C-alpha cells in the first residue's frame, strides 16, 4: 500500500507502465466496414452460414442506429470507416497446439506485462485464455477442465466444436439489435471466450482471460458467452492492460451470461487499459455491453469490477432477474484521473418473485476527470417481494473534476422494497489530519482512506485480483492529491 515520496508532479508524470508496442506482422484487413468486411471476417474464421447471416442482420440494423448521446460523456466523433475490423497475429498452419508453438515474441509481451505464460501452469488454479488482438493464441489447463466437463475455449473454437450451444445461446441475452455498440459487435466480433459449465458442476478453478489491444487502429470486438447450467458454479476473471498508443482505440465488447436454475456465476473484472496521457491524448474507448440473464429459479450472478483505465468508459453490467428467488449483484470501483471519463453503472431488472439485487458503487474522480454513476432498478409488476439496495458513493479529489449520479428507479409492485443512497464528498480533512498526526505521510494516508472507501468492493474480488486492484488504485491516483 505504501508508495514512495517522489514529488507529486513526477508521480503524475510517470509513464504508463504497460505502454510498449510489440512488433508483429499482423494479418490486418484494410480499414472500412461493409458487408464484404463482415463476409471476410466470417470466412477467415470458417464460420457456418447461419452465423454470417446473424452478423449481417446485426450490421443492417446497426446502419439504422445512431451513436448514443445520452451518456454524460464528451466523445469525439468516431469514424467507423477508418477502423480496421480484423487483425490476427500470423501463426503457422492452424495456430499453436501448445505453448511451445506460440510466437516467442508474444510470450515475451506477456512477460513484460508480468504474466509469464510459461509459468502460468504452475500458478494454482488459474486457467488463462489469452487474447492478443483478436485471436486466442493460447489456452492452458484444458485437461483439468475437460475432466470436469467444463468447456472453456475461444469463441471461434466454440463455433466449430460446440455449434449447438453457441447457436442456442448467442444473442439471447444481448440481442444483435440491442444497442449501437452491441449491434456493431454482433456484426464484426472476432473472438473472445466461451464457457459452458455442465449441470451440477462446480468449476474446479477460477477462469481468467487477459485481453489486450495491440495493432494500431484496430478496434477490438470481443464476444464472451458464459453458460452455467443447472446447479453449476463458476468464477470468471477478466483483466486487461494495453500498450500505449496516440490514436484512440475503440473497444466494443459484448459479454453474455446465462445462469440456469440454481446456477451461480461470479464475473470479476480489473480493467486497466491505457487511459491516455495527462493531457487527455490517446487512450482506449471502452464501450462495453455486459448483461446476465438469471433465467433459472434461485440463480445468482455477481458482477465485480475495478475500472481504472481507458480514456472513456461506457459500461453497465446488468442482470435480468427472471427466475424466482434469483439474485443480482454489482460491486464497482471506478477511478478516473487526468482527463478520463467514465459513465458506468448497472441495471437490475426484477421480473421473478422474491428476486433481490445489491448495488455497491464507489467512484473516485481526480484532476480533470468526469465520472458518472448511471443505474436502473426496475421492479416489474410480476416481481412480488423484490428487494433492492443501492449504495453509491463518490469521492472527489481536486476542484476541477466531476462526479455525477443518475439513478433511475421504476417500481410497479407494492410489495417491493427499493432503497437507494448516495453520497458525494471529498476526503475528510479531519481523517487526513488524524492519519498524518499519527505519522502517516499524506499520500499514504490518502491511499489508506481511498482503499478503505473501496473495501466493500475489493472484498468481493478473488484474492489475487484484490491485491492487483489495490495496487492499481494507488498507481492511478498517484499525485492526485495536493
Amino acid at each position: 500500500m505504501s508508495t514512495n515520496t517522489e514529488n507529486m508532479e513526477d508521480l503524475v508524470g510517470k509513464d504508463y507502465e504497460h505502454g510498449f508496442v510489440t512488433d508483429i506482422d499482423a494479418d490486418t484487413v484494410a480499414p472500412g466496414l461493409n458487408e464484404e468486411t463482415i463476409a471476410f471476417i466470417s470466412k477467415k474464421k470458417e464460420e457456418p452460414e447461419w452465423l454470417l447471416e446473424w452478423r449481417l442482420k446485426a450490421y443492417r440494423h446497426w446502419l439504422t442506429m445512431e451513436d448514443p448521446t445520452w451518456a454524460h460523456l464528451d466523445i469525439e466523433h468516431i469514424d467507423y470507416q477508418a477502423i480496421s475490423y480484423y487483425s490476427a497475429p500470423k501463426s503457422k498452419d492452424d495456430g499453436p497446439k501448445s505453448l511451445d508453438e506460440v510466437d516467442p515474441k508474444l510470450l515475451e509481451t506477456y512477460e513484460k506485462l508480468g504474466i509469464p505464460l510459461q509459468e502460468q501452469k504452475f500458478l494454482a488454479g488459474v486457467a488463462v485464455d489469452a487474447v492478443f488482438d483478436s485471436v486466442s493464441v493460447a489456452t492452458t489447463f484444458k485437461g483439468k477442465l475437460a475432466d470436469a466437463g467444463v468447456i472453456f475455449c475461444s469463441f471461434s473454437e466454440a463455433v466449430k466444436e460446440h455449434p449447438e450451444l453457441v447457436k442456442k445461446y448467442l444473442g439471447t441475452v444481448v440481442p444483435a439489435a440491442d444497442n449501437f455498440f452491441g449491434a456493431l459487435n454482433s456484426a464484426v466480433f472476432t473472438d473472445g471466450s466461451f464457457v459452458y459449465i455442465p449441470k451440477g458442476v462446480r468449476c474446479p478453478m477460477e477462469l481468467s482471460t487477459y485481453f489486450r489491444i495491440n495493432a494500431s487502429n484496430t478496434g477490438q470486438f470481443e464476444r464472451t458467452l458464459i453458460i452455467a447450467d443447472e446447479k453449476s458454479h463458476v468464477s470468471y476473471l477478466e483483466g486487461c492492460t494495453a500498450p500505449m498508443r496516440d490514436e484512440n482505440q475503440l473497444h466494443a465488447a459484448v459479454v453474455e451470461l446465462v445462469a440456469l436454475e440454481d446456477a451461480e456465476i461470479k464475473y470479476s473484472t480489473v480493467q486497466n487499459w491505457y487511459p491516455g496521457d495527462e493531457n487527455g491524448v490517446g487512450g482506449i474507448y471502452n464501450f462495453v455491453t455486459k448483461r446476465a440473464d438469471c433465467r433459472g429459479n434461485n440463480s445468482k450472478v455477481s458482477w465485480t469490477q475495478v475500472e481504472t483505465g481507458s480514456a472513456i468508459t461506457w459500461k453497465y453490467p446488468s442482470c435480468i432477474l427472471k427466475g424466482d428467488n434469483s439474485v443480482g449483484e454489482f460491486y464497482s470501483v471506478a477511478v478516473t484521473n487526468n482527463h478520463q471519463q467514465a459513465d458506468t453503472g448497472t441495471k437490475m431488472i426484477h421480473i421473478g418473485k422474491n428476486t433481490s439485487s445489491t448495488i455497491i458503487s464507489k467512484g473516485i474522480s481526480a484532476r480533470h476527470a468526469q465520472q458518472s454513476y448511471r443505474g436502473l432498478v426496475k421492479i416489474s409488476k410480476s416481481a412480488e417481494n423484490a428487494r433492492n439496495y443501492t449504495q453509491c458513493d463518490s469521492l472527489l479529489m481536486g476542484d476541477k473534476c466531476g462526479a455525477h449520479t443518475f439513478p433511475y428507479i421504476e417500481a410497479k409492485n407494492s410489495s417491493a422494497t427499493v432503497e437507494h443512497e448516495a453520497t458525494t464528498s471529498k476526503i475528510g480533512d479531519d481523517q487526513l489530519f488524524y492519519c498524518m498526526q499519527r505519522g502517516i505521510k499524506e499520500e499514504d494516508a490518502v491511499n489508506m482512506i481511498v482503499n478503505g472507501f473501496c473495501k466493500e468492493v475489493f472484498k468481493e474480488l478473488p484474492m489475487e485480483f484484490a491485491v492487483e486492484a489495490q495496487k492499481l488504485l494507488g498507481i492511478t491516483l498517484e499525485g492526485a492529491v495536493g
Partner: protein
Amino acid sequence: MSQDIQNYISDFDQLKNDDWFAKNRQSALNLFKDTGFPSSRLENWKYTDVRPIKKKSFSNVTEADVSVIADEINAIRFDGLDCIEVVFINGVFSKEHSSLEELDNGLVVENMLDALANDKDLLAKHLTKYADDKISPFTALNTAFIQNGTFINVSANTVIEKPINILYLSKESNSALATHPRNLIVMGENSEATVIESYIGLDDANYFTNAVTEVSLSTNAILKHYKIQQESLNAYHIGNLNVMQGKDSKLESHSISLGGALVRNDIHGQLAAEGAEIIMNGLYMTGDKQHVDNHTRVDHLKPRTLSTENYRGVLNGKSRAVFNGKVIVHKDAQKIEAHQNNANLLLSDDAEIDTKPELEIYADDVKCTHGATVGQLDQNMLFYLRSRAIDEETARSLLTYAFADELISNISFAPIRNRLERLVIGQLPDAALIREFTNE
C-alpha cells in the same frame, strides 16, 4: 406546424396584445410554435406523456363571469387564517372576491394586467428573467398568454405578517379552458413574506392550468411559499416555480399535490449568491388513474449555498407518480451542502413510481447526499401497533397517515397545517378511522 398547436395560435391572435410587453408575447409564441409540446423522448419528459393535453382542444380565451358563489370560496378558505386574498375564477381576476384593500406599506399585490400597466419598470426588470422559455415549451406558452396572474412586490426591510393567499379556482364552463396564470414575486432586501398558491377545481371540470411563478429574492429576503394543487380529477396542471436567490436569502417551498388527472410540477432554484438557502418539501398523494410528476432542480452557482429537499409520495389505485430531483453544484462553488430525499409508499399493485434523484457535481469541497426509497409500511411498526391492540386496518391507515404527516407537521402556520392534514386524511383509505384516531 402541427395541428395540435393551431388553436393556441389562433387564440393568440384574438388576444389584446398592444402593450409594451407585446413583443415578448409574440417571441414566446414563436418559440412555442417551433418546439411544440415536449415529447416523452426527451429525458426531461421521459416518464410523462403530455399527449392528452396536446390532443384536447382547449380555449385560451376566457369569457370570465362564471359565477362562483361566496359559499364555494368559503369552503376552501383556511379556517382562522387572517390573510390577504387574491382570487381568480377560471383564470380571470375577481376583484369582488379578493381583499386587496388596505395593504401594508411596502407591499404591492395586484393582478398582472394591472401591474403591466402600473409597474412597467419593475416588471421590465424581473418578468421573464427567471423562468426560461427555452427550457420548457409550457413556459413559453404561458409567456405568450401573460394576462392574468399575481404580482407581489415586497419592499426592502418590510416584513409582511399576513400570508398572501392566491386562489385559482376552476369551474365547469361552456368550453374546456386553458388558463395561463403568471405570478411574479419580488422581494427586496431583508424582506419577509408568506405566499400560498392554491389551484382548486370546484367540480369535476375538464380544463388545463398552465401556471408559471417567478420569484426574485434579494439579500437576506425570506419567502415561505406554499403550493396546494387540488385541481379537478379531470384537469391537467402544469406548474413551474422559478426562483433566483440573492445573498443569504432563504426560500422555503412546500408543494402539496392532491388533485389533477395529469400533473407536472417543476421547481427550479438558482442559488446565485453566497449563503443562499433553499428548502423544498413536497407531498404527492395519488389514486385512480392520476399521473403526478414532480421535477425539481437546484443550481448551486456560488459557494456556501445550501439545499435540503424532502419529497414523499403515497400512491394508490392505478396512479403513477414521478419524482426527479436534480442538484447541480457548479464549478468553483465550494463548501456546498445539498441533501435530498424521496420516499414512496406503494399501496396498490397497479400503481407505479418512477424516481430519479440526480447529482451533478463539478466542485470538490461538497457534502451531498441523496436517497430514494420505494416500499411498504414498516413491518416492525405494524406489529408493534397490533400488539398494542390496534387492528391491522387501522394500524395501516395510521402509519400511512404518519408517513405523509411528516411533511406537513413542520409547516409553521397552523391553519394551513390543519387544513392540509384534513385533506391528506381525506385522500387515504379508511379516512374515517384515522380521523377518529387523531381527534382528541
